[in-house]
């Protein structure tokens, strides 16, 4: 049983538009059976933080292509498979639909 987790979540590159323009969020994730990982975090964000237009951020159970996921300022791809220890996560949009070039 994982204890509640307090993490810092950041949105950038225009993604913050979908979260009332607020870039940094300090959130407390409730405890759950398995340890938290990024995918669960995404689901939680969609339910609790995302204010509008979910399709511009989430696709299925992962981020929409064009949204970078960084954990501790490092590429999420490097973390794939390894558990997420609750380090600060950031979601950065590359899509022109959320920002200029």
């Amino acid at each position, binding site marked *: 049983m994982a204890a509640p987790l307090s993490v810092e979540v950041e949105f*950038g*590159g*225009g993604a913050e*538009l*979908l979260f009332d323009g607020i870039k940094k969020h300090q959130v407390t994730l409730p405890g759950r059976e398995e340890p938290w990982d990024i995918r669960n975090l995404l689901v939680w964000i969609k339910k609790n933080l995302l204010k*509008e*237009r979910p*399709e*511009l951020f989430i696709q*299925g159970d992962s981020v929409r*292509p*064009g949204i*970078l996921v*960084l954990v501790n*300022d*490092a*590429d999420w*791809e*490097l*973390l*794939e*498979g*390894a558990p997420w220890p609750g380090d600060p996560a*950031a979601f*950065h949009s*590359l*899509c*022109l*639909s*959320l*920002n*200029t*070039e």
Partner: protein
Amino acid sequence: MCQVGEDYGDAAPEGPPPPRPGHELKCVKCKEGLPVIVIRAGDAFCRDCFRAFYIHKFRAVLGKNRLIFPGEKVLLAWSGGPSSSSMVWQVLEGLSRDSAKRLRFVPGVVYVDEGAACGQSWKDRARTLADVKSILQTTGFPWHIVALEEVFALPPSVLRCSAQEPVGTIGTYKVAVDSFLQQQHTLVAEGVGGSPNSTPGEEQLSQPCTQDPQDLAGPPPADQTEALSRLFDSVKTLTAKEELLQTLRTHLILHMARTHGYSKVMTGDSCTRLAIKLMTGLALGRGAFLAWDTGFSDERHGSVVVVRPMREHTLKEVAFYNRLFAVPSVFTPAIDTKAPEKASIHRLMEGFLLRLQAQFPSTVSTVYRTSEKLVKAPRDGCASGPRCLLCMCLLDVDTADSATAFGAQTQDCSQMQSPTPPAEAPTVPCCSTEVGRAQNCFRGTRPCGREDSRACVIEQLCYSCRVNMKDVPSLDPLPPYILAEAQLRSQRPSPEIQEYLVESSDDDVHTGGSGAWVPPEQEGKDGQAACDCINKNIFN
């Protein structure tokens, strides 16, 4: 993979994921550092190697192409977005390095405030502009802020391709660089110019920043803002709006460059953005101009060359770099911010490519490599000819070819204009098939009717601009310089028929104020054939 009987039904939607490096991996370059980013398919770089790689790419692109001569004035088009911010930052860093490897041109920065086209209030725009100004001031370059409304004050000369200076060869480039370095050594030896590393250009930079006299102390004239909003509201589709916005922005930046003596403009188009642009261009009918739209250099404007130094950086690399090294940027909502995926061709293509890229990480680079292979060969071997009024590319329309779908389209267009259908040459929009009717031709002194003036503009556009104009129901809200230039061009005889002009005016023929029209053979039954001949020469 593609076999008869293969069941696609249960193909995994994600496809086979590329092999992901584990977190025990080291940087592929230095083999020591902890990787922070994965580039391409599986290359993990540590922070320092990534930085070196990024900077090296920027300078390699500039160095490889050898288009920017030392001491040249280059205008950086900054939109506030990540790629152009990164570009400005790279230039800033590049100029401050040790003399051997330093960038050697003289930059200025321009920012176009497009808030009116996006429906923003002046209060919001002012807030963004304050951020923009503070960032521009930290760069130390001469900077200019222009509002998009200023397109309403542009002169028609913006649309004319000014005389192109001969492009330097590699030999010329080397000579220029050598003489520049020589000059620097001389300055140092004579003790002129302060620090040994300074150049005449840098002297300029250290002076207080020049800014446009029209610098926005307050909002632009309300009537211009209203005219711009009216223009963009009248456009029916988002695709056409985006294209129009891009066109107007280009004209404005071009005008700024010409006015202030810049011979090059650098735009921050990244690899990803150019790949999307290439595919979008194909969908919009710009296939003939892809080499100019997506290549490193774009010389269609003559004296001002547009250069794209960020074209080898993917958006992911740009975003990472900006984040890791704190490159300042300003978020400005665009005309299509938060637009759904199917709102425009641009959005659709972006979604398509980014989705494909997620599964096949070589997508963007493949499209990009293809764009590198496009050759700027002039059509039919003729390097000069009429240019599109809006995008200034050589016209790709073959108006005599009525067998194509395009020919049929223009036939419809022309038949709408003239009350009686012209006898032949269906692409002639004006009623000039008979010499006698030249009096009623819109090229004559009679003022154009609305339909005529629309036809007058449309016939001077390339295929994709024509398609865009279909979504603009009335050409009246367009900025006056476009309409004025269209009028001017339609009254000017093309070079081909200059040879048919004679000094003395003919009694039978009414002139358009541009010389006497005399068919090479007599009128009458040969008149028709003669006019065909003239028309073919005009419209080919």
